[in-house]
């Protein structure tokens, strides 16, 4: 995976450069939001989760792990966590989130989305994902939904590649038992490659 320009902006933001943090937001938010939309039943929930991910990025800035200079994998893992455990994770930001404007167009879209359900994820899979431990949810989202290699996902989640690989196998077994799903694929997992038709 190529290095991303937000690495330099992230470093500058850590030194107090506000506009640089804005550029990190510009670069990463489309992917973060799309990922949130996949997992959230309403557009407003997805907005809250997106905002929460960036607030968490700043609050936990000392613990953020970059993958090839990019904060995006960390943001996506956090987005997964917030989306699937939303009430608890976003509680500390309630006041902040209440201040952000919601447009009518978004409200209309929210109603439409509420009827359709989360975007782009099989409802059966989503239900099964919700039952996984938090770290498994994050690994699954990075690998199966966002297409990161297991090795990169492992870095973002602060675990060894081997640990990520065994965890991935366990997730696959568990989800296969829980729901009649198609094969879950990881770009760099030999077991997954064999099982893919």
């Amino acid at each position, binding site marked *: 995976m190529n290095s991303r320009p937000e690495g330099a902006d992230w470093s500058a933001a850590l030194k107090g450069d506000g506009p640089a943090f804005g550029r990190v937001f510009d670069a990463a938010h489309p992917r973060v939001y799309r990922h949130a939309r996949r997992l959230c039943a309403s557009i407003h929930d997805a907005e809250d989760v997106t905002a929460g991910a960036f607030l968490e990025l*700043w609050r936990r800035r000392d613990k953020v792990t970059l993958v090839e200079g990019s904060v995006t994998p960390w943001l996506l893992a956090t987005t997964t966590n917030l989306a699937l455990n939303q009430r608890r994770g976003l509680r500390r930001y309630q006041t902040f989130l209440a201040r952000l404007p919601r447009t009518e167009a978004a409200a209309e879209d929210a109603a439409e989305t509420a009827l359709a359900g989360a975007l782009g994820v099989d409802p059966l899979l989503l239900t099964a994902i919700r039952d996984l431990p938090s770290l498994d949810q994050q690994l699954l989202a990075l690998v199966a939904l966002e297409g990161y290699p297991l090795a990169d996902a492992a870095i973002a989640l602060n675990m060894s590649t081997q640990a990520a690989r065994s965890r991935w196998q366990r997730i696959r077994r568990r989800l296969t038992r829980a729901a009649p799903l198609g094969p879950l694929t990881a770009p760099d997992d030999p077991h997954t490659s064999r099982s893919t038709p």
Partner: protein
Amino acid sequence: MTTTLDTIFAQALRRELVTLPAQTSRAWGRKPIVFGSAALLALLSVGTVTAVANLRPPGEVAAAPLAAPVLVNGVGPATVALPAAPADARYVRIELICFDGTLCASPGGSIKGSSTPKIERASLPVNQAFDPDNVQILEPIDPSVGVPVIVNPGTHWRLYALYVTGLNPEIAKLEDSTTLGIPGNDVIPDLVPVQADNGDLAWVRYDELTNAALVELTPAGVRQAPLRAYGKDGVTIVGQADVSKLWR
């Protein structure tokens, strides 16, 4: 069905996010200046506090209270109204000292048990301003209504309250490692600001005000001999501070 973040929402969120690095930089970036011995001698020799060379008096290095600190004593549950909050105040910092009783609480938390004195310490928000460094979720208090003092009936208490801009106001450090400033979540300085009897801002020892206060508990409240009040250098005695004022 859109898959991009609503423009108005994104712009508002971005505006908020770009303020975070600067806020944090202001709060954490500046370090207290250690007061050099030469400067200290110079200050003592003239008996007043002035800026010397590149060193600034600790009173200027430490964050100053935004308004005169409130210091009142009472008995039993109460709600202590405060002066209006200055425009730049984000929190009212409180030290609630309970000299007896088994409960000592504020909206920010509580201390229970029979040991005395108990000190409930909290930063209570006075507005909805977002603070990324505050993990505690509290509803803002209305200063005109006041700070709830939640104690057992008959408990003698002292409330020390002052307006601050953040959770951890800057603290100054003297050469002998004495610290001077406003109490924060992370650090309790040795000397804290009060209004001296002459009306000026002065500094008293935190211990003498709180956990080591030599108090007499009366039916009306708490009585204590006036405390020595120090100047901004933390050494010069500039007068005394009455700490027995009763809440009515």
